[in-house]
């Protein structure tokens, strides 16, 4: 994912320095498009107003502390699951990656299949596995884990590939040097490669948290009180569907925007690149 700063320079490089004529045309275009954007926004507002969505009964309860406390509890639930799932995914991701780059062909093939399996199925399907299938075999799991485990499994497949990209970014010469002074394969991995690889992928790990947070939003399936589930309770209490769903959607955007900004900041500070899912090899 590109940082906004360098995309700017490329954007501007596409055009020559505008002369008076072009400047005039850009100005006209700016005015027309501004008017069009404002008109569309106004249209949406009028529509909302006509349907009575601005009526105080849909919004006044947002003035109450209890409403926000309830939403905050949901937010805490969302972050709890997300952080737990993220932590498990980190550990599993490193383990899967180590298996994947193993020199033993059989081991590496097995882990390649595992990684591709978890990257190739939706987290929702895996949640149904923990929610509907496992209880059928007598396994009773608390709803927190019915959410955290499947999300961490699907994320670990992606993280394994992110870690692998990090390991590949460590110069081969360092590995050779370490081997030549008598370190074993395990020591090379533990002391030379992994510390650098992990530092290299930290921004990517932060940005991967966005995916995990989004995945937790199906918590209501297992009736875990996350932000969306608590929003649904508010809806049934106040009979205000549109406003609550709108506020919840905005909260998701803000959380994930903050996480993304954090990863961009981390990438800029360490001078590394954010490896998104879109940039890794698909198989």
């Amino acid at each position, binding site marked *: *994912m*590109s940082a906004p700063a*360098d*995309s700017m*320079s*490329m*954007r501007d*490089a*596409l*055009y*020559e320095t*505008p002369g008076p004529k072009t400047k005039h045309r*850009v100005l006209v*275009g*700016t005015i027309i*498009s*501004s008017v069009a*954007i404002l008109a569309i926004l106004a249209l949406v507002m009028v*529509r909302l107003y006509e*349907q009575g*969505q601005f009526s105080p009964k849909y919004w006044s309860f947002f003035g109450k502390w209890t409403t926000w406390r309830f939403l905050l509890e949901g937010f805490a639930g969302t972050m709890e699951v997300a952080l737990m799932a993220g932590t498990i995914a980190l550990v599993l991701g490193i383990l899967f990656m180590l298996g994947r780059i193993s020199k033993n062909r059989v081991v590496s093939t097995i882990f390649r299949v595992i990684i*591709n*399996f978890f*990257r*190739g*199925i*939706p*987290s*929702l*399907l*895996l949640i*149904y*596995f923990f929610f*509907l*299938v496992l209880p*059928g*075999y007598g396994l009773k799991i608390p709803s927190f884990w019915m959410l955290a485990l499947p999300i961490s499994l699907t994320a670990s497949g992606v993280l394994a590939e992110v870690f692998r990209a990090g390991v590949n970014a460590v110069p081969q010469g360092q590995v050779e040097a370490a081997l030549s002074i008598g370190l074993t394969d395990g020591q090379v991995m533990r002391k030379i490669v992994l510390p650098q690889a992990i530092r290299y992928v930290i921004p990517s790990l932060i940005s991967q948290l*966005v995916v995990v947070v*989004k995945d937790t*939003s*199906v918590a209501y*399936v297992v009736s875990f009180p996350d932000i*969306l589930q608590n929003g649904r309770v508010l809806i049934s209490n106040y009979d205000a*569907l*549109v406003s609550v*769903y*709108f506020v919840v*959607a905005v909260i*998701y*955007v803000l959380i*994930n*925007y903050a996480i*993304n900004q954090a990863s961009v900041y981390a990438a800029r500070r360490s001078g590394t690149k954010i490896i998104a*899912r*879109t*940039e*890794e*090899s*698909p*198989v």
Partner: protein
Amino acid sequence: MSVSYLFETYGSMYLQALLNTWGMTVVSFIGCMVLALVITIMRVCPIAPLRKVGDIYVQIFRNIAGISLLVFFYYAFPYLGILWGERTCVILVVILVASAFGSENFMSGINTIGVGQIEAARSLGLSFTQIIKDVVIPQALRSAILPMTNLLIAVLLTTALGSQVPLNPKELTGMVSYINTRDVGGILPFTISALCYAGTSFAIGLVGNRIDKKVRILR
């Protein structure tokens, strides 16, 4: 639950579910590419408000949780006098979310070209249209193959949102919950759905890798 019982009872539904997942994936991906292209053009055009709208669009839709958008489309829009079918809602949500990532892919495709090439092209006397047509687009498209392959896989996985609305016919994820609420399904229905998803992802990945190897620009 035995395999034969499962196939007898739900076999044709499963086939429909697979085709439904594939169908929604294809339609969503086409829509997503078109919208991503429009958004990208807005983001690189010289008109500042359009750039801003494009940027805001991407920030909103790559950060929103798909399910919270879907419940908004499916449950909130009727209150605003807009009634859409379940299928339409799911496809629209997937398109909106995926196109934000698609536009990011196009943008990073454009960014890999480098300012120097544009300057070189301009100093050779190429016009703006020539620069776009002969320098930017061919390279941006080639380097976008792999990210777009991954996006197609992501679209496939996102259609699982369809299990959260009463979709008819069902898709692969919805089938698992459908069978399990009706029968003691066991692990089998899950395995079939999972293999359908993983198999499709794998096939998409293979084809994408092959195309990428053929057209990739080695830098």
